[in-house]
């Protein structure tokens, strides 16, 4: 795409978003209402899955802003989630105060994200991917080197008070996770609409042009990384709440890769895409496993599910290159493709 064509599409997008303008706050309030109603109707396991979607949504939303709007690819967000999760676990062990603990987890991860972001702002494309990948694989190494604090592979358990009153645990978990998720989405939605969002897109599309237009390129990139790291930290803390335990094995490189897959399949750069991605992260593996179970002999073990998962990824990417969130406009996509 030439710059002119890019500009043209950007203008088009802007017009489109003006057409179906909606207020993020209203969307989030509706979402909250839907979630609360759901928690009273769903059985416990579905509630747990719903809570997991919420926890994933925090990180996918932040990552899609970083990657989709600012063009920085991170394969290390799993490690940032681990940072948040371990912070909360260590805090809970001492103080057992959930809300301040979650805030602290976000703060610590934000700082970690700032350090990585400073390095990341100098790197492009695969070099950034390579560096963040090295960050992702360093988690087990850190937990075993400092095993007095992190307890190596076995990890830490997270002390939690039981939910207030007679609320079932799973329902309580949904409320916590989705409160975090909806706040994240609200924050990002307003952030993306403002000047910062414009700067991020400008940097993604053409760094030189952005610089000429007075956008601080490095500052925007670091800031984008910091924001997405904060979201990852929140997500990690929520996962610690969900699992009541943290261990390095729960934040492997594959998690970071799956996060990237989720936002791309969902629709890069869109919060709706992040929601779809978070949903798929929970739904797809279990659907794959149950399909494989129905079809499978014992000797295929988990392999049929794995294959099914892979086929879905490839087919979706070929059928909807803009991600599932873009599926509403199939004709437009075909046209754009013809142009290339």
């Amino acid at each position, binding site marked *: 795409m030439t710059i002119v064509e890019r500009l043209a599409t950007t203008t088009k997008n802007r017009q489109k978003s003006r057409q179906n303008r909606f207020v993020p706050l209203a969307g989030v309030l509706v979402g909250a209402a839907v979630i609360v109603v759901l928690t009273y109707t769903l*059985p416990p396991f579905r509630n747990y899955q719903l809570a997991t979607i919420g926890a994933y949504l925090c990180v996918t939303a932040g990552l899609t802003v970083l990657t989709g709007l600012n063009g920085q690819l991170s394969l290390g967000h799993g490690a940032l989630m681990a940072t948040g999760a371990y912070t909360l676990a260590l805090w809970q062990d001492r103080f057992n105060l959930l809300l301040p603990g979650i805030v602290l987890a976000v703060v610590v991860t934000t700082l970690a994200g700032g350090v990585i972001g400073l390095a990341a702002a100098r790197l492009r494309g695969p070099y950034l991917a390579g560096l963040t990948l090295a960050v992702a694989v360093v988690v087990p190494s850190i937990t075993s080197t400092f095993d007095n604090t992190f307890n190596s592979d076995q990890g830490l358990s997270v002390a939690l008070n039981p939910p207030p009153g007679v609320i079932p645990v799973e329902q309580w978990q949904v409320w916590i996770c989705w409160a975090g998720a909806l706040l994240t989405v609200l924050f990002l939605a307003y952030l993306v609409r403002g000047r910062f969002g414009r700067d991020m897109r400008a940097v993604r599309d053409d760094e030189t042009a952005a610089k000429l237009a007075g956008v601080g390129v490095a500052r925007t990139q670091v800031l984008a990384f910091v924001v997405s790291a904060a979201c990852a930290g929140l997500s990690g803390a929520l996962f610690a709440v969900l699992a009541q*335990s943290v261990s390095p094995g729960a934040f492997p490189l594959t*998690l970071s890769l799956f996060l990237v897959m989720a936002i791309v399949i969902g629709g890069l750069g869109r919060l709706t895409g992040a929601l779809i991605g978070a949903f798929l992260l929970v739904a797809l593996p279990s659907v794959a*496993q149950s399909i494989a179970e129905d079809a499978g002999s014992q000797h295929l*073990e*988990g392999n049929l599910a794995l294959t099914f998962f892979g086929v879905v990824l490839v087919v979706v990417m070929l059928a909807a290159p803009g991600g599932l969130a873009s599926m509403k406009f199939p004709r437009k996509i075909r046209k754009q493709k013809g142009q290339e």
Partner: protein
Amino acid sequence: MKRTATVLAALLLAAGCSNGNSNSSGGSSSNTPGVTDTEILVGTHQPLTGPAAAGYSSIAPATKAYFDYVNANGGVYGRKITYKIMDDGYNPANTQQVVRQLVLQDKVFAILNGLGTPTHTGVLDFLKTNRVPDLFVASGSRTWNQPDKYPGTFGFNPDYTVEGKILATYVKETYAGKKVCFLGQDDDFGKDSLAGVEQVLGSVTAKQTYVVTNPNVGPQIGAFKAAACDVVVLASIPGFTALSIGTAAKIGYKPQFVVSNVGSDPTTLAKTLGAAAPLLEGVVAANYLPLATDDSSPWIQLYKKVNAQYNGNATFDNNVVYGMSVGYLFVQALQGAGKDLTRDKLTEAVQKGGFTGPGLVPVRFSAQDHSGYAGEQLTKLTGGKATYFGTPYTTDDAAGAVAPYSGTAAAPPANGVPPAQ
């Protein structure tokens, strides 16, 4: 956004409505989760795919095959056992998901033989909160033995410290005055084992660790060679046992290897080493169940029959023996719990102990002790085949002495199904 949320909500609802009955526990078997007049539903989490699947993915199918055998022989009090195996790929985050699915959605009666220390550690609290019996966890961690904290959790394997003490006792008696080195996995497995070894031997000449993410033990084995160790104790998984033995041969270093049970299945090792399998000659390991190659054992005869009939004649190795022994012990526990099956009765039955089965040493379940097998006997590999030598030893994970065990192993019942008690 709004529309997507609605669609997702509808999907979740649709998915949820299919099984929305409430859970309860205790009381009588009529309202015990996973138990009906004709069926007992039991679940497990296992690494079926991914790097950790190697060696371990054959355990759960073997357990299932034994249950099928029991079912074909009338089941337990007329109930058939359904064993639901979930793949967690040895990823603790997946374990969270699949165990919750088993407990909350499938409403299993109990979790049996969940595999792995880091994976299973993460679900202990959840299982405790939901009062789900958590039987015979597949790892030698001491974590499972905390009756006060986790009353429903029971181990199966002898723990790594017990094993370390027994291996070290053998080394102390046979290689007195020789230099001993230790290579362990960089987690509780290696640490607990080293603690046991050093308790008996004192400080070893050189100790090294490996991480599973770096399949090169050249530096570690090189250090042992430089330290001129005569004996190398390995607390490693099978792949790294093979790698260590292969690496030693590569650099012309020939110590006596003494290997932990979890990393010593001769079939798996020989398969991994291929043409280099003769290197295994003379390796000392330990076990507590009949050996897969011991055709004279009535247990092996029984298991082979079950393997042929219900397990698609899978490669018959120590993992299959392990899986079927887990199944046997579970059926024993079910028989002990009686006809009116509840979760509490099952836990009580396990805690009552007194099981005799394929093991060379007793399982020591009691109200105070939830660890599994009490000890091990040493094996030596000769001609590609492991055989027991000496006597079995038992000990504990604390300062207790390593004592020879003189009891004799039980023979399996004629029909291969533990009798009702």
